[in-house]
């Protein structure tokens, strides 16, 4: 199945150092604006399926607010215990002031 870009939200809704969660085709997606770049990842932690939405972002990593697992926003790689599996990452782009994500 080809992944098609779909509108996620207006670009203004995710300012610098901001993030926004939403669903694309039923999949929870988190878009993060950090270090001058947009990232789109799964909004759900690979450890125990908790939402990452309230997690702190630093140095292109997001930390699960509940148990402290960390993920690289660029690659989805799990950076520490208690997670050992990556989270999904998605292509993201801006078209006509809309953030679009390919899920």
């Amino acid at each position, binding site marked *: 199945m080809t992944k098609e870009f779909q509108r996620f939200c207006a670009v203004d809704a995710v300012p610098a150092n901001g993030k926004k969660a939403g669903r694309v085709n039923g999949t929870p997606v988190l878009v993060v604006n950090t270090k001058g770049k947009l990232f789109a990842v799964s909004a759900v932690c690979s*450890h*125990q399926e908790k939402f990452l939405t*309230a*997690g*702190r972002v*630093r*140095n292109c*990593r997001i*930390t*699960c*607010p*509940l*148990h*402290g*697992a*960390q993920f690289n926003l660029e690659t989805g790689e799990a950076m*520490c*215990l*208690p997670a050992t599996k990556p989270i999904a990452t998605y292509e993201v782009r801006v078209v006509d002031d809309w953030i679009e994500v390919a899920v």
Partner: protein
Amino acid sequence: MSEQALEKGQARCPGEPSTQEIIARDRVKAPQWVTSESYQFMGDEDVTIDRYIDPAYAEKEYDRLWTRTWQFACREEHIPEVGDYYVYDIGKHSFIVTRTAEDQVKAYYNACMHRGTKLRPSGTEGSATVFRCPFHGWTWNVDGTMKEVLCDWDFPHVNKSEFSLPEARVELLAGFVFINMDKDAPSLAEYFGPEAMSHIEQWGLEDRYIVAHVSKIIPANWKLTMEAFMEAYHVLETHPQVSVSNADANSQYDTYGDHVNRFISSLGVVSPHHRGRYSEQDVLDQFTVGDASVLEGADRTLKEGETARQRMADMMRDMFSKAADADLSKVSDAELLDCFSYTVFPNTFLFPGISLPMVYRFRPVADDHRKCYYEVFFMHPVPANGERPEPACEEHLTEHQSFCEAPSMNDGFGAILDQDTENLLLQQQGLEASAKPGITLGNYQEIRIRHFEQTVDKYVNS
């Protein structure tokens, strides 16, 4: 007076200016914390080597030293917001250091009170709204009070008010968060003593931020590794590339109470070992410090009668003023140029100078007394606009990598750290192979090592 007539510990590098005489000639004068001296002879007996090679000694350190001393756990900038946390480990001990209010930081023993699971993984930091155990979901508020027990009908014997997370003591100083497991330990101010405290309070390290953080496993005991940085006596043999422009044999050594010592190693002057073989122009040509690339293009030809040290101080002042967008006109030449190295017992070095602005931290690797974890933090002034950049992420090197491989490490400085640490495995192994039960120390140049080990003994033997 002949040298033999001197009291023990009073001899200094013969025929050379002292550090204070070098600094006294500077154009912008140094403050009192620089111009004071505090050396004391502390004996000349050998220091026993069991402390480096015996795993039983390391166990005693865990029982009696690490549990009773103030340790640098993290910087306040690691946890700027309420709920931000940083996990600090020492051996098997682990603490969640977290901001619980704008002006309050707490350190919790990092273990669930149900069946013990760590509440946050070691070596991490982040932000929490609660601390929730990943096993059964027992949950604590950020302030440490217990929030929730799943199926609390099954735990009628758990009184929530008695199940707050146990805490270590916390004190904040100069942007550093210090913790201590000992409820009966002296305050941080008493621990450092009034003179060392007055030095630390004058440096303004709270207004710096971590611009780089590099760590590496070193194959040697933590104390042996720290001691590689406590004297300038090794510079001639270990760092030939910088020895010409370093007042190594005439560096100054001071001790303060039990927990702080320092050296001042002046730069931009010819080493006593090279006296008569290099001109002032040679010293200037050879001088490199920190990020030497910032000096590219600078006029490095000395005028008649001008000294390399003064020219270097002037260049540094100009360069760092521009780089930091700050007024450094009143900062002394010595603070700009020289290496000020303070040990804060048990495991931290503070370098308050401008050109060499580091903090080092050393911790034993749990269960292996022959390995330690060495961290280098580079601390730059917060920009003049007051916007504090995020602290740099840790770049971790394996045992066999060069410090130069860390992306944020300057090559010249990385090479120096490689030289400092490359001999350590040989020293660890040599001590284990030695027929001699103690190490022999110089009375003056190696006083920091004796002072440090005497304090280690005080903790381990009491």
